[in-house]
């Protein structure tokens, strides 16, 4: 296939060797191949916490983001007055780097931040949202920040996908008695399937990769697997364990991606 060859060549040339050496590193030790790195990884007090947090975050966040992004896309499609302005503002978080995003939300949730400022000004007691011993509010903070930062990605993909769905189909559904939810469920979503699949795969894989926001907000108190990878690599300077962690992230990501591909398999192959 002439069309995909350049991308394969490109990716292989660039990532082939680094990938191989990265993966080998996970099994590398002072004396040949070993699984010691995985053992060390698993024994680290932060490891299981980080796995748990990552999974919890993803399981809670992805549905929220998809519902929100879909709602946003549908709102935009309904063309309310000022929709182009809305659209612009809703796409803005895309432009904000993780670091900056973490920073803003830190100023919101920190003890003397905006949220507590609001509470204080209405006479309520400020609350330590990010305190290590307050897992729920910490999780909420990370969740809100991540939802804010990354929903736009799904939103933009869905908007682009919605563009290619002819209005006919929804109109037909309406005529045949489908109300709003029926139309959404039986017509719009199935027709949007390719975009949703793409967004889901990308979003999940990228979600496995995020940690900067959580790090900024909660430090080491809400560890995420990739954050741990960084910590092992740069902080603890143990590239082997870091690679092992990376492999875990990759394995989980790939399993999810395969799952999505299978789950959302297109039966009609040629929908139009």
């Amino acid at each position, binding site marked *: 296939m002439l069309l995909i060859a350049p991308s394969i060549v490109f990716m292989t040339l660039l990532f082939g060797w680094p990938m191989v050496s990265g993966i080998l590193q996970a099994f590398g030790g002072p004396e040949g191949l070993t699984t010691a790195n995985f053992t060390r990884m698993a024994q680290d007090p932060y490891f299981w916490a980080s796995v748990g947090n990552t999974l919890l975050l993803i399981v809670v966040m992805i549905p929220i983001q998809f519902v929100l992004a879909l709602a946003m896309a549908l709102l935009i499609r309904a063309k309310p007055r000022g929709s182009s302005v809305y659209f612009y503002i809703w796409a803005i978080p895309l432009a904000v780097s993780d670091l900056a995003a973490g920073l803003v939300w830190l100023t919101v949730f920190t003890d003397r931040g905006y949220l507590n400022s609001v509470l204080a000004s209405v006479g309520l007691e400020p609350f330590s949202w990010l305190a290590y011993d307050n897992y729920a509010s910490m999780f909420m903070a990370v969740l809100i920040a991540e939802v804010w930062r990354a929903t736009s990605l799904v939103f933009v993909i869905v908007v682009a996908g919605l563009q290619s769905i002819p209005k006919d*189909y929804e109109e037909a559904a309406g005529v045949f008695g489908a109300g709003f939810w029926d139309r959404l469920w*039986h017509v719009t979503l199935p027709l949007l399937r390719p975009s949703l699949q793409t967004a889901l795969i990308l979003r999940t894989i990228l979600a496995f990769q995020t940690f900067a926001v959580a790090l900024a907000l909660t430090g080491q108190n809400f560890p995420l697997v990739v954050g741990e990878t960084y910590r092992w690599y740069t902080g603890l300077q143990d590239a082997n364990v870091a690679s092992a962690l990376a492999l875990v992230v990759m394995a989980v990501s790939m399993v999810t991606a395969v799952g999505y591909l299978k789950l959302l398999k297109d039966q009609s192959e040629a929908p139009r």
Partner: protein
Amino acid sequence: MADISIKGLKKTYPGSTELATNNVSLDVAEGEFMVLLGPSGCGKTTLLRMVAGLDFPDEGSISIGGRDVTYLPPQDRNLSMVFQSYAVFPHRKVRTNIAFGLVMKKVPREELEKKVAWAADLLQLTPYLDRYPAQLSGGQRQRVAVARAIVMDADVLLMDEPLSNLDALLRLDFRAELKKIVQQLGSTTLYVTHDQVEAMSLSDRVAVMKKGQIAQLGHPITVYEEPADRFVGGFIGSPPMNFLEGRVTQQGALEVAGQSTEAPEFLARSAARSGGLPVMVGIRAENIYLEDRGTPGTLDATVEVVEPLGHATLLTVDLGGQTIKVQVASTVRVSSGEKVGLRFDQAAIRFFDTETQLGLTA
């Protein structure tokens, strides 16, 4: 119960300056089969869309079964529709496409399956029930759209050129079935077609539209035989009505193409009053008979083109500089260049005002 009453509908599409429908009023009785006819772009689809609730009018109102539905969303109108573009769902197999409306209505599974099987059989779709629309031919796709609409037993059935891509035979079969179905269910039907045979054979009444307005509304034969104006006469019929410039003299003679015959009395009278009256004479191709030249009461003409159509032969004839079409039985053998005499069936001649183009009647 489900009569449709349309009042003064006006609609301009956003971004367009023309009125897509211009003050359309139309009453369709319960169970009536109304056919909409009209040139491409005259606003038929637009009218249907407003009845369906897919577009809202700028002005005017629509009520179905006495209930005003002008701004009601489509799903609350209990109607079904065949879209001109079919709009079959690409992601659903033929079976579930046909069943769509029934599923929405939460029809029990058994009944649903029975209905789908019935419609598929009627439209010869049974072998294709498990295909996706992309794997069908154009006509098959259109039939899916039709099947989806007729299983609905809706109060109002809207069909926008539902048979345009089907062959004559299938059409014939389906037409007969449709008429039965509609009668059984008592659905009020609005049916857009370009096929005049269809219009004539199916409809209780036809509405001929022109530039967003209704030009004539009536029984199909009336519309065919007594077009309200020149437009309708020229639009309906294949070939359309012939028009000849003529003149009724003060003496009551009708002069056409340099030859003269007798004018009907009501025209003679008004011509007598006004001192001569220019008129447009309309006559259909099948109401002109070929005779030998010189037979009394005939007009001299020359055959220009002979087109055998199978069931008949169509002649293009020069009559004193004006070209008209004449249809004769396919057994008649003439050749181009032949000089012939034409006899007009006097009862079938129609007269139109040369200025307003409106039909002149007694």
